Each structure stands twice: as C-alpha cells, then as structure tokens.
C-alpha cells in the first residue's frame, strides 16, 4: 500500500465524514432540543438533492407540491385544535404561513424552473422549499406528543421516516439523479488529485458548523434553544417558548439536510431512499458522542468516514459491518463508564 493510496483514501474518507458530520450534528441538535431521535433526517438530504436535480432539469420539483400538502394538513390540524378560540390574527397567521406561503413557493417554482435560472437560484429555491418542511413535520408528527417519552417520540420518528420515504418515492419516482458539481475540475494535492467539489463540501461543512457556533453563542434565539436543551421546564419558566424552539430546531435540521443533499448530489447518485443510510452513519457518530456534544460528533463523523474509506479498500464486502459494529464498543464503554443511563422521564 503506497502513500498515494493512503492519501487518496484519506481525502475520500474526510469528505464523506464531513457530510456525516452535518447529519450527526443535526441529530444532536434535534435530540437535545426536542428529545426526538430523528431517523428521518436522511429524507431531507435526499429531498434536497432531488429537488435541486429537478430544478436543474427545468422541472417543477415534487417537493413544491408536498409543501403545499404539508401546509394544508398543518392548517387543518391547527384549526381543529384551536376550535372556538380563534382570533382573526391567528387565522391570518395560519392562512399566511401554511397556505399562502407554500402556494407562493409553488408558483415561484413553476415560473422559474423552466427558465433554468442557474445554480445559485436553484440552491436558494431548494432551501426555500425544504426549510419550511422541518417545522411542518414537527407540527404534524411531534408537537402533539411533545411531552411523551423518548421512546414514543422515537417510534413516531420511525413512522415519519417511513412516510417521508414513501412520499419521496411518490413524487420523485424510483430512479435516482445526479446534480452538477458546484465547482468542476480537480487540483493536485501532493501526489494525488482532489476534486474541487470535495473542497466545496469541506468548506460548506465548516461554514455551517461555524454558523451554528455563532448562532448558539451569540444570538438570543440560539441561547433559547440551548436553554431548552438543558432544561425544558426551566426554559419555559424563564419565558422560552418550547414549541417555538423545537420548530426552529427542525427548520435548522431541514436546512442543513438540504445543504447536505446539494453537497452530495454531484458525488453520488441520489434516489428517494439514499438518505437513510447516510443519516444512520451520522447517527453512529452522534451516539459515539453521547448524543450531546457537537464537536465530538463532528470528530466521530470524520473518523467514521475514514474507517469506511479504508474498510471499503481492504474488505469492501464487510464495509457496512465494520462501520456499524464500532457502535458496540462505544455503547459498552459508555454504559460502564457512566453507569446505568439516568431515567430521562424524570427530567
């Protein structure tokens, strides 16, 4: 094994690890703020990539229709729940946010898509379509159970995963797509050549991480999210709207998911069900970091990317076995080092 191969595998691993890191960090964010182990995060990745691919082909992405459907469903649920004590202002909010906004986005897509407005506009449109889905998914699936146990929320998350995969199949079809790289071309790095797209992935990942850091450390909303993560009841007592924090967390998750999709779209063929396994690898990273620490999750994700790359080279048939097996020693170590897990029902 030459140093060239070693280096090539390392760059491949680090790049995949960067994508897993984005997903892992999102899982930690969602778990700490809402206690949901959101296994469906991968669906946002697939939807992001497929939406982008549709826009590049000049087609109206299926997610635009889905968003309208989600908005209508959420509006109906809200109206039913608020029966009798509905102010005009609230009605206006529901109509504007859940009905008019998705329809406006659908109209915008229908108008812009055939013009093929170029990559920057496509990315913005993709984000505009996927980000509102996060809070909508939360409101439809998790808000009614916000006070349930982690296990029940987890079961709901599996339901959401199945539903999102099925919807993805319905609107995007069974075949996958690729998208054009943000930056084409390669640069020599020592003895190997590295695709510019790889640098784009690393750069965007670093930017997202930095953005999250600033958001949590410097903004009031970010601090409210952290407060909710530390103690839901305490946060509520000091005036943090826990539901609002959860929606923000889901919006962030959907956004980061869509960004990950746009990043991996040029590197691999993305189909409606591609996201799940990527999400699981992010999940392994999050577990290694105890579903608590962002930097540890990112580090673990890069380590998983490297492990995956080297095991793909030496024993490709057992690659997934190796990657998913490393979760076991970490779980053992955690349970020995920290004793029995504290009963989260008593938090």
């Amino acid at each position, binding site marked *: 094994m030459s140093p060239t*191969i070693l280096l*090539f595998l390392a760059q491949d691993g680090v790049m*995949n690890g960067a994508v897993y890191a984005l997903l892992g960090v999102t899982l930690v964010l969602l778990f700490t703020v809402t206690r949901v182990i959101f296994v469906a995060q991968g669906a946002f990745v697939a939807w992001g990539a497929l939406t982008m691919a549709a826009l590049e082909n000049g087609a109206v992405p299926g997610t635009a229709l889905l968003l309208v459907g989600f908005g209508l469903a959420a509006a109906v649920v809200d109206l039913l729940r608020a029966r009798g004590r509905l102010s005009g202002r609230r009605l206006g909010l529901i109509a504007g946010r859940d009905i008019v906004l998705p329809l406006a986005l659908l109209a915008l897509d229908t108008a812009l898509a055939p013009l093929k407005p170029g990559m920057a506009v496509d990315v913005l449109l993709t984000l505009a379509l996927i980000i509102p889905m996060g809070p909508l998914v939360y409101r439809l699936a998790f808000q009614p159970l916000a006070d349930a146990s982690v296990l029940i929320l987890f079961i709901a998350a599996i339901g959401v995963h199945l539903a999102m995969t099925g919807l993805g199949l319905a609107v995007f079809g069974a075949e996958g797509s*690729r998208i054009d790289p943000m930056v084409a071309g390669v640069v020599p790095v020592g003895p190997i050549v590295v695709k510019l797209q790889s640098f784009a992935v690393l750069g965007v990942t670093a930017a997202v991480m930095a953005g999250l850091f600033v958001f949590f450390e410097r903004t009031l909303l970010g601090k409210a999210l952290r407060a909710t993560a530390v103690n839901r009841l305490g946060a509520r007592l000091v005036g943090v709207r826990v539901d609002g924090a959860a929606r923000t967390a889901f919006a962030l998750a959907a956004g980061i998911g869509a960004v990950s999709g746009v990043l991996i779209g040029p*590197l*691999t*063929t993305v*189909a409606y069900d591609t996201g799940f396994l990527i999400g699981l690898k992010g999940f392994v990273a999050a577990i290694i970091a105890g579903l608590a620490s962002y930097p540890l999750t990112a580090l673990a994700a890069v380590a998983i990317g490297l492990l995956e790359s080297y095991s793909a080279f030496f024993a490709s*048939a057992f690659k997934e076995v190796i990657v998913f097996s490393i979760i076991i020693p970490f779980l053992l170590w955690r349970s020995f080092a920290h004793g029995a897990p504290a009963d989260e029902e008593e938090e």
Partner: protein
Amino acid sequence: MSSKRASSKVLAPMLGAALMALAPAAARAQIHIGIVVSETGPAAALGVPQKNTVAQLPKEIAGQTVEYTVLDDATDPTKAVADARKLVAEDDVDILIGSSATPATLAMVDVAAETKTPYCAMVPTKSTVAPLDDKRRWVFKAPQDDAIMAAAVFDHMKANGVKTVAFLGYTDGYGEGWLTAAKAAAKERGIDVAGVERFQRTDTSVNAQALKIVSANPDAVLIAASGTVAVMPQKALKELGYAKPIYQTHGVSTMEFVRVGGKDVDGTIFPAGPVVVASLLPDSHPSKAVGLAYIKAYEANNKTPFAAFGAHLADCASIMLNGVKAALEKGKPGTPEFRAALRDAVETTRELPANHGVYTYSPADHSGLDKRSRVLIEIVGGKWTLLPDPK
C-alpha cells in the same frame, strides 16, 4: 299461514338448488389470474411497470374470458404470501404470477406448490425453479438466468482478448447472483477474475473500491449494479483514469442510466432482453414483432416509456395462457383438474416467441430460454446500438 308453509316448502329446495349452483360455481367459463407485484417499497421500480402492463394483457383465450386481479406486496415477502393465499382462497385463481423481487417470489413458491396452482415467477433467480423438485414443478420462470446474461458478456470479452477482469458489484442478492455467474463464465473461458469488490446501493462513494481495481489494472471491469446507481462506480473508475472496457449488467437497461451517466457511460457494453432494443432487432428475430407490439401498447396506455421488467409480466401471461387450450379438455377453469392440466400443458410449451426470448419448457427445465433471450448493447454517443453476437 298455509301460504307461508307453502312458500317455505318451495323455498327450501330452491335454496338447496342455489347452494348446489354455488358449490361448483368455482367452475366457470372464465380464467382468473392472480398477480402480485411490488407497486411500492424498494422494488417499486420493477413493480410499477409490471402493474402498468396488466391493462394490455389478453382479455380472451380459447373462448374463455380472462380476468386479472392485481395485489401490491410493498416488497414485503410476508405480504406477498398473504396476497397469494388471498388470491387462491378467496378469488379462486387458476394461475399465480409474481412478484417483483426475489425474496417475495421465493416465498410465493410455497403457496403455489401447497395449493397446486401453476405459478410464473418474474425474477431471474435460478433457485425459483432449481432443483426441480415436487414443490418447484408448479413454478415456471420467465426472466433470463444470470448465467445466460453472463455468458453473453464473457463471450464478448473473450472475443476481444480480455484476459483479466475485475468484478465490482452490489453486496445484495443481485451482486451475489452475478458474481456466481461471472466466476463460472470466466472459468469456462479461461479468463482470470483479478479482483472482487462490493458496494451498497446507497453508498455515497465507491472511490476506494475503484482505486483498488485501478491499481490491479485488469483488462476489463464488470459492474453488477442497477439503474442510475450503476453510474457511480463507472464514474469513479473513469475519474481515476481507467480507460479499458467497462461492462455492465442488464440492470442498466434503462435510458435513465444514460441520462444520469452522460459521457462517462459512453462505450459501456451490457446484455439485455431483446425487447429492450426491439426496434433495432433484425426482422428475423422471433422477439421483434412481439416486442414492438408490447412497447406500442404500453406506451399508448401509460404515456411513459416502457421498462424491460413490465415485459416479464406480459411473457408470464402468454406462457401460462398458451397452455389453456389443452387444459380446457381436461377440466373447467376454477377446478383442481384444470390447474393440474394447465401445469402439464405449460410444461410442453415449444418455441413460444415472447418479449424476452423464445420459451421451450420440459419436465427437466422450467427456465425455458436459450441464447435468443439476450442481446448485447453498446452505448455509443448516448444511444443504444446492437452488437452482433460474438462467435
């Protein structure tokens, strides 16, 4: 009072007669075919074109009307078995066809054997009809074996002086089936398998595997993957500077592969069922007329391009319906006698031209296809071209 009694006297025998009529009602002037496909779930890419084919299947055969009932198994073997049992028990079907994926199909074999219902499998998996024991004698298989497809690929390799080949395939049943077929075909022709690498459908990168293959530098690479996912390994090989021939399997016989792969997949050679390139076939090819008719009807009905998987269902229907005429002499549709006679009749099928080849079954062979069931295609400038059969 008396009138009431009278009526009950009349009614009782009438009821009896009605029941008598109901009991053999299963025997009817109508043939009922039960179809299980994976309209949803991971095998939906196969199941949807199959479902879309039902509308164009024959409505009448040998003076009998033919009725079709289609159920979705959601790519779940348990559901497929439940569907098959429902079709047999409640709908009294004479023929079972299904399903889109291998695990569900293998599970349905047991139902067919237990209920003694002639059954046509739509997956290439050899173990649906081999070994041909008491259970599998009820099963006929329509799609080509991997071995037939692999033989075409390796004949072409041998004719073009390929001495070493690397294999890069899925870790699932599709990859495994091809690996077994490829190893056997390579050994027969004195070609050395220089490396075997595997990957997952959902992997984001196959660069490591591609790198290992490129450093071994074989004369050709065979990629066993399907649909648009098969583009990724080929792209990875090209990016690493691999310029020798790349072969794919019939899993890529969809224009989506060319759409997503672009110029990276130019020059790819892969085997496929003849229907896939029906319009390019010479007029003498037995599948040309059948294939063109299938495609025309499919595209008129569905307004979407046809897929090779749907044609397997059409082939299954024509194989099974081909035995109906002979079976009608032995029994009425809906009876066990008819089903047994139909099985025997299908087993004597000779030279039946269909979309994916020419079927000839025998008590020793329920696969029924020969070399005429595959062609080799090369992608040239984003278009499919038919390659002549290597000698």
